[in-house]
C-alpha cells in the first residue's frame, strides 16, 4: 500500500514557483529522503504534507486519504523541526506529552508513552528540564521524541541533525535507521547531507529549485546520477569531472586523457565530437608505481589520510587534477610519479551543455 502520494504539487510565492509539479510515491514503512540544497523546496513540501501550508495545486494522499482541507491536528503525522521548535515555556516532559495529550486521556498510558520514548532516546533523566536548560543534543532528542511518541503513521523529519554537533550527528546517523525501522512508520526525511541520505533512504528524491531532479534508490542516485550536480553532491571526496570530447577510431569510442585513449562504451558513438564531461568516482581509480599501456602518468600533489580512507590529489601531465580515494593502510606511501588506471566500466559521461548524464543504452540524455 502506498504510504504517501504527492500528485502534481505546485506552490508559488509572489510569482515565484517554489514547487513545480512534484510527484512522489512512498510505500508504507519506507523511508523517503528529500535531498537538495537550501531553497530547493524541501521544507515547503514537508510543511504541506504536515498541513501547515496549503499547496496551490495538486493532491496529498496519506495512507489512501486525501488531505485536502484536513487541518494539521487531524492528519496523524509527527514532525521534527530543524530548529527543534520546542515550546520554551514547557518542560521536556510537557513538550513530549503535548503530542498525545489530546488523544490519550489515560494519565497512566500517557506517562508510559512519554517515559518509554524518553528511555529509547536516552533523555529520561532530563524530562523535568525546560528546553533552555537542555544541551543541543538533548533538545534534538526531545524534538524527536515529541514527533515519535504518538507512533504516527507518517513521520516527517526536517533535517533534524542539521543543528547538532558532528559527534552527535555521527551517533544519530547510526541510531536513527534502527529507530525508524522499529517504528515501522512511513518516513519523509529532509537533509542536505548525502551520507544521511544514503544511510537512511529506501528512496531518495533530489529536489532543486522546486523540481525533482532525480528519484531512485541510494544506489541508483550514486551510480547513475542524473546530472553532474547530483554526481558532485553524492560522494566524498567529490567525483572527478573532466572536460572531454569523445572521438571514434577503429577500436571504438574513446576519450583522451593525457594522450592515452580511454575506450568507453561504443554506444556513446552519437556524442562523438560533442563537448562532454567525464565523471570518474575517486574510489574507482587504481594507482600503480609501474607504467602499463593504458595507465596515465601523474604526479602526487597532496596526500590526505582520513580515518577510513586516504585521499590523494594527482596532477596529470596535461595539467588535469584528479582525486583518488583508497582504503586507508592498504597501500604503500606514494610520492612523485605514479600511474593511474581507469576502469572504463565505472566512468560516466555527461553532456557538457546541459549537465545531464548520457545513457549509453537509451541513446539519449536521462532526466
Amino acid at each position, binding site marked *: 500500500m502506498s504510504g504517501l502520494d504527492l500528485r502534481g504539487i505546485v506552490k508559488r510565492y509572489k510569482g515565484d514557483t517554489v514547487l513545480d509539479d512534484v510527484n512522489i510515491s512512498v510505500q508504507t514503512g519506507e523511508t523517503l529522503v528529500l535531498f537538495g540544497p537550501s531553497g530547493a523546496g524541501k521544507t515547503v513540501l514537508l*510543511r504541506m504534507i*504536515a*498541513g*501547515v501550508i496549503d499547496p496551490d495545486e495538486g493532491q496529498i494522499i496519506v495512507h489512501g486519504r486525501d488531505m485536502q482541507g484536513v*487541518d*494539521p*491536528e487531524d*492528519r496523524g*503525522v*509527527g*514532525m521534527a*523541526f530543524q*530548529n527543534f*521548535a*520546542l*515550546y*520554551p*515555556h514547557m518542560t521536556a516532559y510537557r513538550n513530549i506529552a*503535548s*503530542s*498525545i*495529550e*489530546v*488523544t490519550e486521556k489515560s494519565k497512566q498510558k500517557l506517562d508510559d508513552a512519554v517515559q518509554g520514548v524518553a528511555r529509547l532516546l536516552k533523555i529520561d533523566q532530563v524530562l523535568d528540564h525546560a528546553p533552555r536548560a537542555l544541551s543541543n543534543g538533548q533538545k534534538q532528542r526531545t524534538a524527536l521524541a*515529541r514527533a515519535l511518541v*504518538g507512533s504516527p503513521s507518517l513521520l516527517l523529519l526536517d533535517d533534524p541533525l542539521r543543528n547538532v554537533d558532528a559527534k552527535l550527528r555521527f551517533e544519530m546517523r547510526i541510531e536513527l535507521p534502527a529507530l525508524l525501522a522499529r517504528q515501522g512508520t512511513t518516513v519523509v526525511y529532509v537533509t542536505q547531507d548525502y551520507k544521511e541520505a544514503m544511510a537512511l533512504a529506501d528512496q531518495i528524491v533530489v529536489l532543486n529549485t522546486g523540481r525533482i531532479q532525480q528519484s531512485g534508490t541510494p544506489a541508483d542516485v550514486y551510480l547513475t546520477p542524473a546530472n553532474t550536480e547530483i554526481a558532485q553532491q553524492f560522494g566524498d571526496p567529490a567525483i572527478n569531472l573532466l572536460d572531454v570530447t569523445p572521438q571514434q577510431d577503429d577500436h571504438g569510442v574513446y576519450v583522451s586523457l593525457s594522450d592515452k585513449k580511454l575506450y568507453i562504451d561504443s554506444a556513446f558513438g552519437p556524442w562523438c565530437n560533442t563537448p562532454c564531461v567525464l565523471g570518474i568516482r575517486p574510489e574507482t581509480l587504481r594507482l600503480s608505481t609501474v607504467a602499463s599501456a593504458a595507465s596515465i602518468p601523474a604526479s602526487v600533489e597532496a596526500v590526505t589520510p582520513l580515518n577510513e580512507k586516504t585521499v590523494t590529489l594527482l596532477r596529470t601531465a596535461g595539467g588535469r587534477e584528479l582525486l583518488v580515494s583508497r582504503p586507508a593502510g592498504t597501500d604503500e606511501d606514494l610520492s612523485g610519479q605514479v600511474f593511474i588506471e581507469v576502469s572504463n566500466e565505472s566512468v560516466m559521461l555527461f553532456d557538457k551543455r546541459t549537465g545531464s548524464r548520457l545513457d549509453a543504452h537509451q541513446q539519449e540524455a536521462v532526466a
Partner: protein
Amino acid sequence: MRENSLIESWLRGIAIAVVILFFMFPIVWIILMSFQTNETILRIPPSVVFEPTLDNYRALITGKLETNAASLDIAFMRNLGNSVLLSVGAVALALILGVPAAYSFARHKTRFSEDIAFTLLSFRFAPPLLVLLPLTIYFQKLGLSDTYFGLIWVYQLICLPLILWIVRGYFEDISEDVEYAYRIGGHSWFSTFRKIAVPLAGPGIAAAGLLAFIFAWNNFIFALVLASADKQPVTVGALAFVTASGIQYGQIAAAIVLSITPTLLLALYAQKYLVEGLSLGAVKG
C-alpha cells in the same frame, strides 16, 4: 588634554544636574506642597522648612473640606475611583479585542488585515475632537452619555492601536515552527493561540496593557467632552477641583500627587517596555 577632559566632565556634570533639576523639581515641589498647610504654602519667601501635615490627604480621603466659612464636599475620591474603573475597563476591552486581532494580523497578513491595522493606527494621530464632537450628540441619542461603557468604548481610540501594534510585534517574534509543531501535535488553531502564542507573548501583552493603562489614565479630552459629572476621572476632576476649591492649595497639591502616583509607579515597573510602547513598537529599548 587631561585638563580639557576635566573641564568637560565638569560641564557634563553641571548639564546633567540642570537637566535633573528642571525635570524633577516640579514633582518634588508639588509633593512638598501637598504636606503643607495653606499658611506655610503662602509664606514669602518660600521655605522647605515646615512641619509636614497629612490634613490635605485626610480631607481628600474623607471627602470633607473644612474651611473657616463652611464644610465643602469633595468628590475627588470618586474621580479616583472613576479613573481606575475607566482605565481598567478600557485596557481589558482593548486586550480582549486587540490580542486576537494582533495574532491574526501577525500570522495571516492580507490586504484586508493590513488595512484595518493601519486604519487603527491612523486613529492614534487623528484629532480626537473630530470624532468626539459628533459623539456627544450620538451618545445622547443612544443613551450612552451617562455610562462608563460609552467612555470605555471611546478610550479604544488610544488603547487599541497601542495594544494591536505592540502585541503584533511580539507575536511576529515567535517562531512559526513552534506553533506548527503544536498543531501537528494534535491541537486546534485556537488552543495553539491560547497555550503557545499568548504565553510566549505574555511579557509583551502585559507591558502593552500597562502602557495602555497609563495612557487611558492620563487622558483628559475624552472625558472632558463626554463624561457627566459623576463619571469624571481624575484628570477632569482635578481641573474642576481647582476651580471649585479656590484657594485650598494644599488639597489641590495632594489631589495632583494622588492622581499622578499610579502612572508614575506603573511607569517605573514597566520602564523596560516604555520606549517600545511610546514608539508604538518602532523602537526597542
